[in-house]
């Protein structure tokens, strides 16, 4: 923590992490809910198009191993929910979108955490998530300047180009150009 917000940024990408304490007795219900999200349909993150990769992890405790000669064991007082997202652009507007679009799920997720506002949505949820933010020490992004939109477009174009290269072999120059312009446009 306290590394400063710059460390959360690489290019246009932002690394967000919130670590919230789970209310005792709610651990299994929260875990079951999160693990059931895929079976319930597309991931809720599909509604947050600025999300590259995101995860929910419930941490039950720190690992203590006597053979490591740790002088004293350390245990978490309650289970903690970690939410991390690798997102496009600035955090504030992303959290605005999250607190609006994920409101139905937020009630079931952060609503099971200590200190979460009664209505787990909007500005109150945003303040809660920011209060529980853990700053990054080092953030590595392999394609830091590419938004999700850019990544998806590039992947589509790559597939299209592979198909074009495969199927345009043997065309004469005029036919090749016509087909290229038909499929890819003239860049305008």
């Amino acid at each position, binding site marked *: 923590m306290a590394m400063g917000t710059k460390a959360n940024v690489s290019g246009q990408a932002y690394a967000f992490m919130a670590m919230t304490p789970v209310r005792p007795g709610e651990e299994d219900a929260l875990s079951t809910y999160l693990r059931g999200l895929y079976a319930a349909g597309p991931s809720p993150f599909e509604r947050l198009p600025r999300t590259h990769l995101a995860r929910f992890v*419930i941490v039950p405790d720190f690992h203590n191993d006597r053979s490591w000669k740790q002088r004293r064991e350390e245990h978490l007082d309650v289970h903690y929910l970690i939410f991390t997202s690798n997102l496009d652009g600035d955090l504030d507007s992303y959290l605005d979108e999250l607190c609006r679009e994920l409101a139905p799920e937020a009630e079931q997720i952060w609503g099971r955490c*200590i200190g979460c506002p009664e209505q787990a949505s909007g500005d109150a949820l945003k303040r809660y998530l920011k209060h529980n933010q853990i700053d990054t020490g080092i953030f590595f992004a392999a394609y830091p300047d590419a938004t999700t939109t850019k990544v998806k477009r590039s992947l589509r174009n*790559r597939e299209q180009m592979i198909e074009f290269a495969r199927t345009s072999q043997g065309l004469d120059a005029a036919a090749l150009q016509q087909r290229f312009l038909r499929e890819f446009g003239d860049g305008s």
Partner: protein
Amino acid sequence: MSAPATPAAPITATGTASRNVAGQAIAITVFSTIRPLVNLLAPIPGRIFLPLLFFLTRSFPKLTGTLRQLSFIHFARWCVISELPYNGPPQRKGKLRYQHMYFESNFNGGWEEYIDAFSHILARGMTAFWGTSYGFPKPLPTAPFKRYIQDNEVEADHYYSAYPEATSTMIQRAIVLDAKLDALKRDAAKLEPEAFAAAYRRFLTDVQHCL
């Protein structure tokens, strides 16, 4: 971790639990406890060394050059946690006894191959990052290091990728290709057919490593 809420998910062909997998992408989440004092692997205490390491790594991007060569990583992060934000009872208030390091990575390929690559290619880097943590066995040989990571790993309860079909390498190549394709598109309508065909052939030669 020592007290999982529910039983661990079965290990998949990727070498990790199915909940850590989103198409091609694999999540790894690791906590380790930082030693307050020095040891042979870490002659400077973690509370001093790690902020310095993080600062230097951020200030000199060349230091992450090797990480960038490991083209199967999408995003990774390291955080040092000294205190957890307080939200009221029954949460305990105050600093943690030890600092803890949080590491997460989003990569593609297999779990074993990922750790192998880290151990062999980034041996010094791994020692720098985890040398101050309790129980870190050195990155080589890999078997004890893998056990160490497994002991400290937490499975995801939900993992999402916006482009599950894509590897990091595919994405990086697609971005390079896209920029060159944009240039060809801009010229395509202005060129005579023969000149376009020659430009297209040059383009294909130029981007063949991206296809």
